[in-house]
């Protein structure tokens, strides 16, 4: 699956001078099958905006986003839902967990969203142990710390099949040790699916064997 960005300019960034130096804004960018793409961006350059544009959460931009060469704006909600269940997964910077569900339930909701589950329920506990959050699985999500919530959001994203994993500062609330554990898990899961990812972050890093690094 290919994700293409054609001359995207978000309306709020339209007049900012750094738009000229960007390797993404107002350019033709193709993310090809299986590519591991790192997008480095200082604060305020529109990392989250980019993720939301790719994920179809906002439409205040000019240019086009294409999934498999089809303009996303013309794809019906039912088909978008299918993409989100089978071909694309996401880790938002603000986690977006259901506050009234437990950590476990948040993950389980995603696991059982499509008719055929990608993983057994046992994998939830297994991954939670790997990331050190097994003890908070049955705690309500809004009582978990940001670090814990971030790891739950990561596990949730890995519960489904995907060809692309979109990550918006996925380790922002994690310490080095926990970051490395998460990186190991994500690497394993992406390899297992032959999947690509787009990761946005503030700084440079060597967590993954990136195919490409772009500056926003």
């Amino acid at each position: 699956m290919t994700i293409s960005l054609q001359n995207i300019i978000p309306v709020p960034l339209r007049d900012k001078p750094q738009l000229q130096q960007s390797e993404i804004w107002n350019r033709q960018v193709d993310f090809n099958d299986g590519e591991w793409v790192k997008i480095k961006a200082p604060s305020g350059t529109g990392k989250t905006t980019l993720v939301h544009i790719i994920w179809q959460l906002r439409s205040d931009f000019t240019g086009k986003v294409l999934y498999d060469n089809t303009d996303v704006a013309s794809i019906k909600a039912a088909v978008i839902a299918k993409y989100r269940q089978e071909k694309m997964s996401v880790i938002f910077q603000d986690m977006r967990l259901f506050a009234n569900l437990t950590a476990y339930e948040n993950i389980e909701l995603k696991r059982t969203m499509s008719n055929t589950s990608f993983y057994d329920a046992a994998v939830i506990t297994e991954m939670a142990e790997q990331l050190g959050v097994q003890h908070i699985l049955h705690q309500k999500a809004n009582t978990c710390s940001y670090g814990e919530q971030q790891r739950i959001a990561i596990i949730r994203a890995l519960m489904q099949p995907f060809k692309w994993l979109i990550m918006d500062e996925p380790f922002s609330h994690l310490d080095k040790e926990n970051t490395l554990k998460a990186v190991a898990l994500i690497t394993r899961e992406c390899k297992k699916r032959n999947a690509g990812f787009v990761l946005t972050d503030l700084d440079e890093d060597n967590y993954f064997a990136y195919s490409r690094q772009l500056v926003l």
Partner: protein
Amino acid sequence: MTLLLRKIIRSGIGKLRFWMAITGMGVAVLFILLAVQLHADFNQLLHGKNNANETADFLVINKKVTPQNQGQKEQNVFTETDIKELQTQPFTESIGKLATTSFKVSVESYSAAMPFYSDAYFESVPDEFIDVKSEEWKWSEGQRDIPVIIPSFFLDLYNTGMAMSQENLPQLSLEAIMAIPIKVTVQGNNQAAEFVGHVVGQSDRINSILIPQTFMDWANKQYGYRESPKPNRVVIKVKDPSDPALVNYLEKKGWKTNAEKTRFNRIRKIVNGVVAVTGGIGLVLLLFGLLVFSLFIQLTIASCKTDIELLQTLGTSPKQLERFLLKQFLPQNIILIVLALLFIAILQWVVTGILKTQQIILNPWLAVDTVIAALAVLAVVYVVNKQTISRYIKK
């Protein structure tokens, strides 16, 4: 997934708000269905057979004798046109002419113990309009005996007034009267004949002294100064003597009938008004009920709008959501409507039981209209549900 979705949506509503909305909706459904049931009950009271004293009623109609027309007997009879017009009125089921004798009649007692003599007249009407069923009620040419039906107030007047006022007069039962033969003399066309009259019954319906139609026809031909006299009274069979249309018609024509029977029409007008007002209130309640429905659904969905959006962000398909949300609201509505129906059914059963002791007979079961209304409400709820839900789901 369904369980988790339910947890998300329920927590978004808030228990108090949920129960408030349910209560509001329940009251609205109850009012709507109650209004329909009441309307059905009223209709049954007004038009049902059980509550009429008889399934049909008979009214004797005559033209009013006024100072202006009292000198012209011929004007106070019913013409063929009058009768035809009356016959075509919607309230008339059938019509019978009361024929009167056109010869001189006198009656007197055979008994010296109770002597009386009086000039008299007879009237006749087709048998189907007579409320006395008697084997003896027939006459054929050559028969000396004539069966006679007297009005019931006749005997009452005699027993309560006449007999009491005079020392020598005994009170008489109907049986006694029926046993007394009466000498009937008819004269006319320079002939006279004597017959024996027998009272065979008393009529509550027709205030006249009746003889069989066959005797009337024969005697009028034989002794009458005119062969077929025009009727000055007619009797009509009507379904509903309190029908305002009937009362208005008679008033317009200046004709008279038994005021007692038509008096109920005033009450009837009032009841009609009450029913109309009830119907109006029911309609207003219906509108309010629907408003409460849609507000409840909108409130519920609006209160978990963020969660619904997040579900879609995570990949829940619009169809999945729609189906799930419908399942969340419809069962409650169905349960509510069934409960309301059940409540009204019990109420109807209890109230009809109480009314029965006061001779007001109503069907103790739910009216078909109420069940249809419940189904209609359910259909409206379904449509409103579906529309509200799809408004909140991106497609």
